[in-house]
């Protein structure tokens, strides 16, 4: 089991980006939301996407597993390559894609089912044939939740605390054995202690997984990520509220020595 996961991830040890966008724009009902994003995500790294509210961070994140398909009127232009495959081509099955790319949401959203059934949900719809008990345990261990819930797997996932619920959602995502995990402000609804646990967990997980995290919290980006992308609204046409990628680089470099004035202003707290 453990070995299996490792094997599938060895492929990604090369320096090829796991996700790469080329001239990516997203429209909602023909209104441009983000424009011309070019970004390459390194495998087995944590990439943080930061920026002020409404600049399209979540929109960008949701293009990677085609969650925007679910929003009526959403349209994507440009290319998104996932391990070199164009994920917006007609032949691509978004359902299959989402089985390779896990997602954790802003508000913990465990299903109103038992802890066990929450974790087993993904594998079950994937017709997983291995030992389900083992997979559930492994996933919960990886999400650092096992010790807290091992005696109450039959209890509702909603009986857990907020932080535990979010780790349950992470375990649920891990159970489908993805190679990429998208996190959309996963700690914004949690208290500082629970937040710290999630951050520690992310750092443990990056050995095996690639993580992209959208966050409002700059300290969080600074602490936990390897690379940071700073997005903001296009200043030349501020009324249109179009999100653009301002700067992207190593977190250390971006935080200590930003190339762009706007990045610096944002990081030092002068706006946003």
């Amino acid at each position, binding site marked *: 089991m453990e070995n299996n996961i490792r094997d599938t991830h060895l492929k990604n040890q090369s320096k090829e980006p796991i996700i790469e966008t080329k001239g990516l724009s997203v429209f909602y009902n023909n209104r441009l939301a983000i424009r011309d994003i070019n970004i390459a995500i390194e495998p087995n790294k944590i990439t943080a996407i930061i920026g002020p509210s409404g600049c399209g961070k979540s929109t960008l994140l949701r293009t990677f*597993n085609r*969650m925007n398909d*679910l929003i*009526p009127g959403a349209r994507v232009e440009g290319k998104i390559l996932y391990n070199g495959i164009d994920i917006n081509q007609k032949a691509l099955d978004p*359902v*299959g*894609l*989402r*089985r390779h790319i*896990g*997602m954790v*949401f802003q*508000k913990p*959203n*465990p*299903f*109103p*089912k038992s802890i066990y059934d929450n974790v087993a*949900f*993904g594998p079950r*719809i*994937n017709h997983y044939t291995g030992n389900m008990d083992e997979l559930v345990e492994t996933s919960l261990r990886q999400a650092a939740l096992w010790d807290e819930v091992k005696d109450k797997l039959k209890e*509702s996932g*909603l009986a857990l605390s907020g932080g535990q619920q979010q780790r349950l*959602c992470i375990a*649920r*995502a891990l159970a*489908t054995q993805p190679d990429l995990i998208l996190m959309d402000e996963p700690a914004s609804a949690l208290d500082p202690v629970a937040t710290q646990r999630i951050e520690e967990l992310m750092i443990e997980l990056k050995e095996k997984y690639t993580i992209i995290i959208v966050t409002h919290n700059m300290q969080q980006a600074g602490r936990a990520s390897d690379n940071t992308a700073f997005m903001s609204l296009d200043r030349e046409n501020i009324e249109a509220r179009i999100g653009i990628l301002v700067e992207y680089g190593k977190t250390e470099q971006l935080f200590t020595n930003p190339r762009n004035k706007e990045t610096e202003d944002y990081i030092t707290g002068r706006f946003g």
Partner: protein
Amino acid sequence: MQAKKSGQSEHSKLLLSEDSRRREGLIAFIFKAAAVLTILVTIGIIVSLLSETIGFFARPEVSLWKFLTGTRWQPLSSKPSPENFGILPLVGGTLLVAGVAALLAVPVGLGTAIFLSEYATEKLRKIIKPVLEILAGVPSVVYGFFAISFITPIIKTVFEGWLGLKVMYFNALSAGLVVGIMIIPMIASVSEDAMRAVPRSLREGAFALGATRFEVAIKVVTPAALSGIVAAFILAISRAIGETMAVSIAAGSTPNMTLNPLKSVQTLTAFIVQVSFGDAAAGSINSQSIYAVGMTLFVMTFVMNLISDLVLRKFREVYE
């Protein structure tokens, strides 16, 4: 007033005048009276039902045991005896009609609800929902005539013409199908409301795990909305049990102890209609018998509600 005395005139607005306090009190009293009236009416119905029912069972011609277990219902026969007051044919007729109705309405209603809540575009939903509500607003006597003028001939053609089975003109199948059609909008509409109340975040969570639209609908939304869906079923089946007009027209008025939906049956409600329209004298055994039948109906729907409560407590997936 006190404010003036203590000289804090700027805070005087905080104190209610005698008048407005009295007005508030009156308003509260009116609402309370409305609530009490409702309760009194309910109690009144139960008391009148109960007293006539007790009067019925106190008669020497009937026995409670024979009433509950007897399979012959001939209350209008010239010589009343306990053997002629067995409720089971009426209960059986009622359940047969309600069962046929449920077999049609539960899958179609639930399917409609899933379609509306999970598949249909907002535009389409805005067209279909009002149509459903129109269907729910058609008077039941119209459904009754629809049954005998449209459904019954089709049943005759199919079962008698093609399959060679004997079909009575008034039959439980026709009545059940038309009652089913009547309760589809209720099941669809109430279930759909329950499904739309399931938070979007749960659907997103499932989609993100690679669930198809169908898997999201069946494995996440339906279980999460189950309490509302079961409530819709119970409500609709209670309505089917209590439905009177369409059933009286389509199912006939022959108390029949049968599971064959092609035969004529009499339901509890149809019997009450039959006797009410006749000229049974007040206090006579016939007039009292309809109270006993009414009581049976009341107990049946009450038990249905209890069962639904139990079901809900056991299977409910609380999402908040």
